[in-house]
């Protein structure tokens, strides 16, 4: 037990190796240790049971040829990974995941920053505008998906009605796989840019006013102040948003499930994993392998971000 704790970042645990070397614990250290256990163990137990155990289980299932619903399976080693990476689906799924992630992360952050700049202005009605901008983020993805489906419906949707008004036919948003992806991306960005806007707004409001005033006195215009002062000083916020929105995008599910149940053109890694196991195919082992691929990608992206992107972040 104590060996595991030596690796913990918690302060009481850091003191343990030295004490162990001395071979005894003082009364206070022992008391601190029990307090640490009492506070941390319930959370650690929950994380272990509901995060790490399923993760390990999933890795094990990825080595099986297992049909969901069947009580037996065959161990196939890395066959599921080989099947995925050599199938014609892999480039399509990975490509869709890449497009969806890049566009939704980029779109949410850029539009979120623009909205935040607008919301930061000292004019009447900004409180209402801030609430309105954030509202879509807290709405249910299922509800949002259903409403937007009605808007995009080429037969009797609101968009179709507007387009007919100017003599245009509605595009086949739902049946055309490429347009389906565009449709889902638009809705995803609309739903999530409020989150980026609020976080950026907090960042903008914490920028030091004296630096801005000094730059103004030196003759820097608004754009120059924004590019040379605001953007660099917002880099911790940008870095935080980059990590959280990228993870959210790679895990996006509800809108895709509601708006394009077959995943035709919108099958990202996570949706493909769902379709393979819980859709029509019931390939639980294969689905687990796709999930592991997604996990590995998330892990690599996060490590790369922490290692390289964070270097460019100005914390003060």
């Amino acid at each position, binding site marked *: 037990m104590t*060996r595991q704790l030596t690796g913990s970042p918690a302060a009481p645990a850091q003191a343990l190796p030295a004490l162990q070397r001395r071979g005894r614990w003082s009364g206070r250290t022992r008391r601190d240790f029990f307090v640490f256990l009492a506070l941390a163990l319930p959370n650690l137990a929950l994380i272990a049971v509901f995060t790490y*155990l399923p993760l*390990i*289980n999933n*890795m*094990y*299932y990825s080595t*099986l*040829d*297992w*049909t*969901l*619903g*069947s*009580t*037996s*399976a*065959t*161990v196939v080693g890395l066959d599921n990974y080989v099947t995925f990476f050599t199938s014609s689906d892999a480039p399509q799924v990975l490509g869709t995941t890449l497009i969806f992630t890049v566009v939704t992360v980029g779109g949410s952050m850029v539009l979120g920053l623009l909205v935040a700049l607008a919301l930061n202005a000292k004019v009447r009605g900004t409180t209402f505008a801030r609430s309105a901008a954030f509202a879509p983020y807290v709405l249910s993805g299922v509800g949002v998906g259903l409403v937007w*489906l009605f808007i995009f*419906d*080429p*037969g*009797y949707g609101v968009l179709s009605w507007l387009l007919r008004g100017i003599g245009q036919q509605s595009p*086949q*948003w*739902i*049946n*055309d*796989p490429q347009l389906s992806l565009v449709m889902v991306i638009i809705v995803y960005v609309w739903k999530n840019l409020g989150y980026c806007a609020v976080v950026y707004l907090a960042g903008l409001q914490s920028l030091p006013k004296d630096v801005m005033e000094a730059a103004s006195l030196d003759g820097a215009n608004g754009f120059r102040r924004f590019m040379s002062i605001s953007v660099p000083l917002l880099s911790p916020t940008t870095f935080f948003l980059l990590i959280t929105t990228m993870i959210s995008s790679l895990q996006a599910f509800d809108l895709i499930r509601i708006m*394009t*149940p*077959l995943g*035709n053109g919108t099958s990202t890694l996570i949706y493909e994993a769902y*379709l393979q196991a*819980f*859709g*029509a*195919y*019931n*390939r*639980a082992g294969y689905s687990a392998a796709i999930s592991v691929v997604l996990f590995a990608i998330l892990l690599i992206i996060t490590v790369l971000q922490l290692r390289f992107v964070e270097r460019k972040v100005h914390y003060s």
Partner: protein
Amino acid sequence: MAMNLDRRNFLGLAGLGVGAAALAACGGPSTSGSAASTSPSDIDFTGVKPAGSFDFWTSHPGQSQAVEQSIIDKFQAKFPDIKVNLVTAGANYEEIAQKFQTSQAAKSALPGLVVLSDVWWFRYYTNGNIIPLDGLIKQLDVKIDDFQKSLVADYQYANKQWALPYGRSTPLFYYNKDHFKAAGLPDRAPKTWQEFAEWAPKLQASSGAKYAYIYPALAGYAGWTLQNNLWGWGGSWSNGWTFNCDSTESVTALQWAQDSIYKDKWAGVSSKNAADDFSAGITSTTISSTGDLLGVLKSAKFNVGVGFLPGGPKAETNVCPTGGAGLGIPSGVSKEVQLAAATFLKFMTEPENTAAFSAATGYMPTRVSADMTAVLAKTPQIKTAMDQLAVTKVQDNARVFLPGADQEMAKAAAKILTQQGDVKATMTDLKATLEGIYTKDVKPKLKAS
């Protein structure tokens, strides 16, 4: 942050990894035997007493929750010792299948009776998830000869009966009588698609509707309704276990469908639900399930006509597939629960109850002796569905027996009908996919069973 991995750390990590792997192996499926199921022999229910209660998992096909509950109430008046818990286990056949499969994996919370659709029951059979009903049919004296033969035969495999028909449907041809009248067309469904192709321009010119015909939504069982086109042209998704969706006949059939959209421009493809599009007046005709009949009659603001599915150049009749759902009993519950569920299954499928179910939903009565006089007096269109039953055809193996085939068919149909993809190339790809699914997921299990 630097980590020194000495020998002790390495051994510790290795131990942790082995422990984790061992822990993971404790759950999930067994890897000690064959993945294939074996057909259980007849189960002996002698001396078994029915359980006091069981769950009935349903998706309420055809918005049938109220009629299901009323049949349950009648059952409990007759069998007060058996409580039936009506459980909404999903909004459609796929969701209920998902829940059922997940419960199988978790080995818990299984129902006594479950709704299973045409494309799912065979998978339950190959996985050993459902029991054969032959012993229970005999013990409870279920009048199997009184069921519609084609409907009950759909659930027979390896000389056993794996389910009984419940919310059974066929596709129907729906048409807007007002549009037909305005176009000067006869008040009937077309006999063939060629005849309809002649009618379509007249309909488009006079009706004001966007389309003369709308193909059903591709996410809504495209593989089911497109069998009508394939069979009419002498093609199919498969013939037995031979996958011939790339045959000249099949390709010609789907090329004709593509031309109706892109060349002749009188047809479209529904985005969500063809029955809703039809009711909304977007199209003059469509094909949809008999289970949509009452909904369409209720929501349409015009006179609705229904008819048999049109034939094609090679076959004018027997071009309508059966479909819909049956009821099965899981293998993972106790014999007591299975017997209680079978007692209710017998009651649920009795003539007066199947007539009541049909009246409430538009699904076909599954019993020959069901008295439909009152139902037909109220909704005469149901008679068309009943009459069409005589000219239905069992679905292609590829659609109903291959896991995920319906989805692959929908994707192929999307390429052809919404992206104007090359028909021959798309069907050749589909054939390869279907053969792959058969070889990997079905063939080994058929050999073992």
